[in-house]
């Protein structure tokens, strides 16, 4: 053989040998993480990253996941979806084909989850998202996709019902949502719940993400809605509160969903954040009993604060809980790395049967109906910012404080 032919032959052999290396035995789990580390959703994406990292650090600090007497550490492989669905799908493909991960911890946003799920379905790799909340995900009935946070049509009615029960009862509402999968679903959930609670919806609109809403709100001010409910992400929520302050309009109640519990919301708005209502499924003060890693919500919150010097919110907690769900399911099936296709199928079956108490609450995934593969083991909470702190104000059985209502003008 000539020199060039020899080199080509050598390259061919090397290329063919790559899959053999990738599948060779290893004593650690390869865990893919797809989330938004850059782009417009980077704030929430980094919250999920903290949750996933904290779980991995806690597992590795204990030596790894113990299966049949041997401990297997976990190693996270990140794929930045750049807050773009197409990049989310690419990240999923890369993690499946190049990194050959055993399972995936999923994106922060619902739209990104919807983009990554079909790819992982193709490669038969289980994914648990610790954050995505749109019901659209569960309507698709992906076999390999699960979520630890219940969808917004499961949680969204709780704050509306709490507010509807206050005195004087709000009679009218303005409901709007940002034009993305999660925010639209949130606004629709608020609208359905408001109608059921006997609150007249004066205006319902989906607006472009990041839009300057001053003209819209100035016009809405003329209608004097008692309740303003908004489905959006962190930055949009801050902008909305600032816009309401600027036009000097204070409704009786202002309700948002995710973002209110983010530390950035309170930091950016300071006193203007007070009395804003939100929806959640976890706070550091709720009573839970964990079987693994953290014994209760408080101990998780303390660990998170120690690690990142930022209070944990329910998305970060949900992300760590996603790791725990995989951990417990792996123990159930005696799954050791690397997981082949058969074992990954067993892992999905184990996740479907899983019932585990964690610091985050009970994890139990629905196996049928509209919430298919979403965690329905949690109680939706109504929260309110009171004196710069997130406080549970509903349902009555779990409330730590009475809601501050009606909202006081900030002037």
């Amino acid at each position: 053989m000539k020199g060039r032919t020899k080199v080509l032959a050598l390259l061919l052999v090397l290329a063919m040998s790559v899959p053999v290396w990738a599948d060779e035995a290893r004593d650690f789990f390869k865990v893919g993480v797809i989330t938004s580390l850059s782009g417009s959703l980077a704030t929430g994406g980094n919250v999920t990253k903290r949750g996933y990292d904290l779980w991995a650090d806690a597992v590795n600090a204990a030596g790894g996941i113990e299966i049949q007497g041997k401990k297997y550490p976990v190693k996270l492989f990140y794929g930045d979806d750049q807050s773009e669905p197409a990049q989310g799908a690419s990240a999923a493909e890369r993690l499946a084909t190049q990194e050959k991960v055993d399972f995936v911890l999923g994106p922060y946003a619902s739209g990104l989850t919807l983009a990554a799920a079909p790819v992982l379905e193709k490669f038969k790799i289980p994914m648990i998202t610790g954050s995505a909340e749109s019901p659209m995900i569960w309507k698709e009935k992906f076999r390999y996709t699960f979520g630890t946070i219940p969808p917004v049509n499961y949680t969204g009615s709780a704050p509306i019902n709490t507010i509807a029960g206050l005195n004087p009862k709000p009679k009218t509402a303005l409901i709007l949502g940002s034009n993305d999968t999660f925010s639209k679903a949130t606004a629709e959930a608020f609208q359905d719940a408001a109608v059921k609670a006997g609150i007249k919806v004066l205006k319902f609109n989906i607006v472009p993400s990041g839009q300057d809403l001053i003209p819209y709100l100035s016009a809405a001010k003329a209608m004097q809605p008692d309740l303003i409910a908004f489905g959006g992400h962190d930055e949009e929520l801050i902008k909305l509160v600032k816009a309401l302050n600027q036009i000097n309009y204070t409704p009786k109640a202002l309700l948002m969903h995710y973002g209110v519990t983010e530390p950035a919301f309170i930091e950016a708005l300071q006193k203007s954040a007070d009395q804003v209502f939100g929806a959640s499924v976890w706070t550091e003060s709720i009573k839970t009993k964990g079987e693994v890693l953290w014994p209760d919500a408080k101990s998780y919150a303390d660990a998170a604060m120690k690690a990142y010097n930022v209070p944990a919110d329910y998305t970060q907690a949900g992300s760590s809980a996603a790791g725990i769900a995989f951990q417990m399911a792996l123990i159930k099936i005696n799954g050791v790395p690397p997981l082949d296709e058969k074992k990954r199928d067993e892992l999905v079956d184990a996740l479907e049967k899983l019932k585990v108490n964690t610091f985050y609450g009970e994890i139990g995934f629905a196996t049928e109906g509209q919430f298919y593969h979403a965690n329905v083991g949690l109680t939706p909470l109504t929260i309110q910012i009171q004196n710069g702190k997130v406080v549970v104000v509903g349902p009555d059985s779990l409330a730590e404080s009475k809601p501050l209502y009606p909202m006081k003008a900030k002037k």
Partner: protein
Amino acid sequence: MELLPQATVDGLLIGGIYITIAIGFSLAYGVMHIIDFAVGEWIMLGAFLGYYLNLWSVLDPFILLPAIFLVFAVIGYLIQPLVYRVISGKKGNPVLMGLVFTFGLALMFRGAALTGFGFYSHSIPSAISQDSFFIEMGSVFITIPYVRLAGLLYAIAITLVLHFVLKKTDFGRAVRALSQHREASGLMGINAKRISSYVYGIYVGLSAMTGVIIGSIFTLNAQMGGEYTILAFFIVVLAGMGYLAGVPWAAFLLGLVQSFFLIYLNPSYTLMAVFGILFTILLISPKGLFGRGV
């Protein structure tokens, strides 16, 4: 009809913000023929300096504007020779080279800001950001937020100052000469490098001040730049590339379209309407609203 005065006022207020975003960008293009894709990042960096200065000094962001301008004007003045070198090279297409160079600057600034400032959104509190004028005449009412009115007044002020400087001073004449014909202006004794450095410094300073106003009205974060770069680019294209006098009209037009769509039509299609109008005008008049662009 009751909402017509409110829609008009809101459109003008949004237009005021758009002027502040685009006017420096237009000036830089007019003189240096550079499409500076880092404009949004200058806005972001100015916003962060305003945010930290406000935290440190507790002074109102509007009082901090001159200091922000000075700091960034010096930075712009010092960086300009680099930009000049890239766009005045003999090889390659200078406009394209400038675009690529500033795009690289933008990526670098954004990455550094993400690392240094983190990914959270912040807000710059101002004493005037929590109240508004309220005018009621029968069924007609108008709400004018103080902070946005201040933004509009600032936009009008910088437009008038730039107009005065360009039309009535020797420096302005030199800038205009440079913008019209670089070589001929050099033959008349104008130092193109120095004038370009001053102009770039003014542009960067104006953009940084805009960042502080945006941080006060909306929010600021390390990744905000891209959105404002696109906005600045669209307004300047609509006004006519490099035609400074067209910027306020283009900004007010886009602001009014946005406001009327949000109030009277379907808010979901606001951005589509804004871009639709931009494309239609450019189809009819490729050199912008007044046909005066480069």
